[in-house]
């Protein structure tokens, strides 16, 4: 058994229980620890370094429930060398896992408040553990809205689960797509357009935002227009993470390391550096 920093640097072997094909290029891996150890406790919004043997490591958000410690769930989009290698794996195959790392979504800040969750594309994955947590403690929050923007109806993640969430009377779930295909009867347009349609008290609301940075910038702009303060908005940033413990500097974002100080940041903390192109 490794301890201290070694434990964070040495991957543990996990076996794939199930591969769920979410969309054309996105899949979910359900894993368990190969020697039967209980998985590490994680907080919604944290990530693991996933090691595809022979290909390398990639930082992948944890997308499962924090209350199922024996199962580790990651939703992956096959876009790079490592994630394309992960896409070739099947149930029974093994991968390496380091983590969990980073700061997650602050839940205590939201208790007693309305919650607005704005997700775009694969950005829904790191928010899903948060949604599980909110549903589990539903009575502790005010109005809860999930606003989700996808590229097209075929790119909507967790479709079955989205239907279940939509059918709940205590969750407002609105989905919009950028490009509608025949047979789509839902909203079409940018996810930011959904924010003014959402009932929340701007003085007692917390917003959690994750998606492409341009989407997050415009979501913040709209949330502020609706009266939310910079203090009440949290977002998950993405940078090229390598060591995941703030040593290598690959994910440096101004004075912060995204792997260690993030990936979830309070907007007020990073607003001044968000528009600096060089970062």
């Amino acid at each position, binding site marked *: 058994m490794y301890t201290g920093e070694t434990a964070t640097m040495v991957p543990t072997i996990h076996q794939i229980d199930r591969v769920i094909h979410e969309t054309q290029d996105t899949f979910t891996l359900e894993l368990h620890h190969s020697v039967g150890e209980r998985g590490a406790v994680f907080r919604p919004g944290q990530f693991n370094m996933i090691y595809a043997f022979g290909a390398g490591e990639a930082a992948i958000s944890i997308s499962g429930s924090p209350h199922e410690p024996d199962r580790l769930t990651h939703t992956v989009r096959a*876009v790079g060398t490592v994630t394309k290698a992960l896409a070739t794996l099947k149930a029974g195959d093994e991968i390496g896992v380091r983590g969990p790392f980073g700061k997650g979504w602050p839940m205590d800040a939201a208790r007693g408040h309305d919650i607005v969750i704005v997700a*775009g594309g694969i950005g829904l994955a790191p928010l899903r553990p948060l949604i599980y947590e909110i549903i589990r403690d539903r009575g502790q929050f005010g109005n809860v809205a999930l606003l989700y*923007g996808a*590229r097209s109806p075929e*790119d909507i993640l967790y479709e079955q689960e989205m239907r279940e969430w939509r059918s709940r009377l205590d969750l407002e779930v609105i989905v*919009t797509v*950028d490009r509608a295909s025949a047979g789509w009867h839902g909203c079409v*347009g940018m996810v930011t357009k959904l924010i003014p349609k959402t009932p929340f008290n701007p003085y007692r609301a917390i917003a959690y935002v994750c*998606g492409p940075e341009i989407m997050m910038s*415009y979501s913040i702009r709209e949330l502020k227009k609706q009266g939310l303060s910079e203090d009440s908005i949290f977002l998950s940033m993405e940078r090229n993470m390598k060591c995941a413990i703030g040593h290598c500097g690959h994910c440096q974002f101004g004075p912060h390391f995204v792997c260690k100080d993030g990936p979830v940041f309070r907007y007020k903390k990073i607003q001044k550096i968000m528009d600096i192109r060089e970062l």
Partner: protein
Amino acid sequence: MMNGDSMIKRLLESHTFADQLIPAHIDTLVGLAEPQSYEVGDYLTRTGKPANHCYLICCGQVTIELYEPGRGPRAVETLSPADSILGCSWLVKPYTWCFDSRAIEPTQTLALDTKALRSACETDHEFGYQVLMKFVTVYAERLRTSRIQLTDMYSAKE
């Protein structure tokens, strides 16, 4: 019991389009407005037809569609009361619609007579400026979001 004009006035005053309009300008709009209801599937505008009305959406949802020969209608945007206005083709010649729009939920609107509205804007420039600023604000935002959508921001990036 409420007469037609006072009902229209009430609807108009509760609509975001009327925010910060002075009472005289609201009264002018009341004279040009007519409440209309649409069932699911009803068209509000048809491509190429005269843009004789523009619409303030009071409730429901409308889809803006582009008809592609061989592929049929494609929804390019959906609008609801939060989006305020439907239709700007009445502002520029030849005053004909560029898109179809169709109710996808039971929808209520205030339809403004656009010929009379153009005339009122020309007669009273202050009124015209205020009305045009309303349209410019809404359409500038729609242009902005459309441009962001053009970047295909959710597409895969290595």
